[in-house]
């Protein structure tokens, strides 16, 4: 048995770069507004945002499926709208809707996609199909929502992509399914150094797997940082405007979100510089607080 070939990043070229991206729907509001974002090789990023904040639009734009009104998207250093075959073979995508290709059976779906890719891990596909209890010859339209989603994930992992984009991949999965999926994801990252970006609302999963969090708010990435750093460095402060201003100046803290309170006081979520100890009256925040405040 041969040891798995490590595929850690051998380049510092970002897997994906989005510069000044603006997207709006016809007669609709602006969804992405001058957004800048970069995904480095091997990074695992959890994309967080409220319902309708534009996560799916962002991921579709990142993949070159949606043409922005302004800005530029590059994947592996190429224009996302004109990717060559080699670059496309390095991308795996799990769309939000998993009820696709309903006329096919899972076996047909895998054979269909395999016919396009130069690399295809049959053993992994077979293993996951049997482990995740997916009937090979049952029409996809007859599978449950969770099974369809698992099938979609297997399809995206089968060609061992270097960039994996997952749009709410665990929405229809039960806790066991989510655990299995996260295990596969971690293995993918550890074995191959795959860059992963996935959107989700299930915060507990992010705490288990996402090394980086990106918060999408008002059409921009409001904040992106490693999860551990965020939990360690972000604190909630309450006080008068002047008190907090002088405190932040002294600590070198970066205010992230201000919430006015009564009597000239305010509650501010701020990020402390690395190595600076938080004052004892500052409140620690959890991931749910961060989601609520920053999106």
């Amino acid at each position, binding site marked *: 048995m041969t040891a798995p070939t490590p595929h850690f990043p051998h380049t510092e070229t970002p897997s994906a770069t989005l510069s000044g991206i603006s997207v709006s*729907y016809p007669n609709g509001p602006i969804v992405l507004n001058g957004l800048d974002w970069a995904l480095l090789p091997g990074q695992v990023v959890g994309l967080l945002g409220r319902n309708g904040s534009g996560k*799916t639009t962002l991921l*579709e734009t990142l*993949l*070159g*499926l*949606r*043409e922005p009104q302004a800005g530029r998207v590059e994947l592996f250093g190429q224009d996302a*709208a*004109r*990717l060559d*075959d*080699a670059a*496309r*073979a390095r*991308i795996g*995508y799990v*769309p*939000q*809707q998993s009820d*696709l*290709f309903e*006329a*096919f059976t899972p076996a*047909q779906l895998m*054979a*269909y*996609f*395999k*016919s*396009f*890719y*130069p690399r295809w891990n049959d053993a992994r596909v077979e293993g996951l199909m049997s482990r995740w209890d997916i009937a090979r010859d049952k*029409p996809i*339209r007859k599978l449950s929502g969770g099974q369809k989603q698992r099938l979609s994930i297997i399809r995206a992992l089968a060609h061992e992509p270097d960039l994996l984009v997952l749009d709410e991949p665990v929405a229809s999965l039960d806790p066991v399914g989510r655990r299995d999926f996260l295990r596969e994801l971690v293995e993918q990252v550890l074995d191959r150094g795959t860059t992963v970006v996935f959107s989700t609302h299930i915060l507990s999963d992010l705490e288990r797997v996402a090394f980086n969090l990106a918060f999408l708010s008002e059409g921009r990435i409001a904040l992106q940082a490693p999860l551990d750093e965020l939990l360690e460095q972000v604190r909630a402060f309450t006080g008068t405007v002047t008190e907090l201003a002088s405190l932040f100046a002294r600590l070198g803290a970066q205010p992230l979100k201000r919430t006015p309170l009564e009597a000239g006081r305010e509650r501010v979520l701020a990020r402390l510089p690395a190595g600076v100890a938080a004052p004892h009256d500052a409140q620690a925040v959890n991931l749910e607080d961060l989601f609520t405040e920053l999106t």
Partner: protein
Amino acid sequence: MNAAAYNQLLLAFWRQRDLDAPWGRRFLVALALLGTALGLYFLPEFTSALLAATAAVWLMSLWSAIIGSLLKQNHPHVARFVPGHLRQLREAALGSWALLSLASSVLLWAFVPRMPSFALLLLLSTATLAFVGWAARTWLLWLVVSFAPVLFFGTGLDKRLSPLWAALRELWLGQPWSVLALCLLGLGASVVLMFGNGDGVHREAYACRDRMRRASEESLSGKRAGAAALGKPGEWLARPFERVASSWLRHVIARAQPTARSVMRRAEVVLHGQQHWLRQGMGALLGLVIAVLSFALAFGLAGQGLQDNWTKGAYGMAIGLASMGFNPSFALPNMLWHSRREQALLRLLPGMPQGMALNRSVAWLQLRHALVAWGVTTAGLALLAWAAHDLALLCLAFGALPLSTGWLLRVPSRMKAPTSWTAVVPVFAFLLMAWGMYALHQKLHTPLVLLAGVSVAVSALLGAWRWRALLAAPVALPTGRLA
């Protein structure tokens, strides 16, 4: 009685109409009004009879809409958990059934000459409305209506059962009102029984109807659903189709090459879904086989030769053949819209053409299919025209050609969501053009060769103009959720 609650139930069909696609509905109403107006113009001596018959048909259509909506509202969960809902549905259905059948009977009896007795009219209209309700619930009843008369008369059952008919007739003539009352009771009970009480059988039947309803709504916007939408009988019927489609998929995958031609051959399986040329071809073949068998059976049982009917029915058969051959091609752009979510994955596949190359590939794919379908159908029409000694039937082919090039080469990325209106526009346009050419030939003696030449020239011009616009479009497919 809470009138507001009954209003809510009975008017739901109108309140829930598709406001995004009003033109199809308006067009049908306009067509009906035009038909009535023409009837009144050409048959002024039958004005009252015509108006009464039209009103009766409208009332029956109203029943069809109401009962369809009431059955939709009879959701198993609501039937089980909302107190009084099932009772209200039954009362609303029973009331509207009684009122509408009575009104249509009165109209026909009072204004249309040579009608049978009022009792018989009432029996017929109540039975018709009850049947329409049951057929909305159980689609297989339409099959019974389609084939039963042929089998019934063809196999001589009418003669064998004549003693029974005679006895029933005797009974009716002897005691018409008692028999009518008994029949109305039975029919009323059948209307009440249409509604389920939320048990397992109801849940299963409702899910099946819901699947069919969605398939029917989608088909209005050009998305052809698989036979699986008809439930288990549909799946059983579709099994040979699925086997052939699977064999084709295996074939194209086994011969996959990293060439644009091979990639597009695999892509079209997904892009056109149920409108893939193989499925279209099989559907047309099945339709032809059923038509031939039905004709053979009907004429064979009736003891008539085919030749005479062939000649007389050539025009109707030509329209049927043309609809079967040309119409599916007009739906191809709509299928591109309906497969837009799958396109997101297709566009990321290695080998898939990009930009202008994809524009060209998709356009050529559709045009090729439409032209092949046109060629085959035109050959069939020519055969029909030759057998029926009426070459003007070829006008159907001349009318379809410009639509094939003009409609299919629209820029998909600028498409709006198809509606029932946009789905029927090319079909009506095709019929209108064919009818116009037929009229030009028959009334003004325009030579068929000239009509054919004009059709080809217009098609070429339209095609060239559309092709240029299509190649200049930045994106070839309406990929994505909301594109």
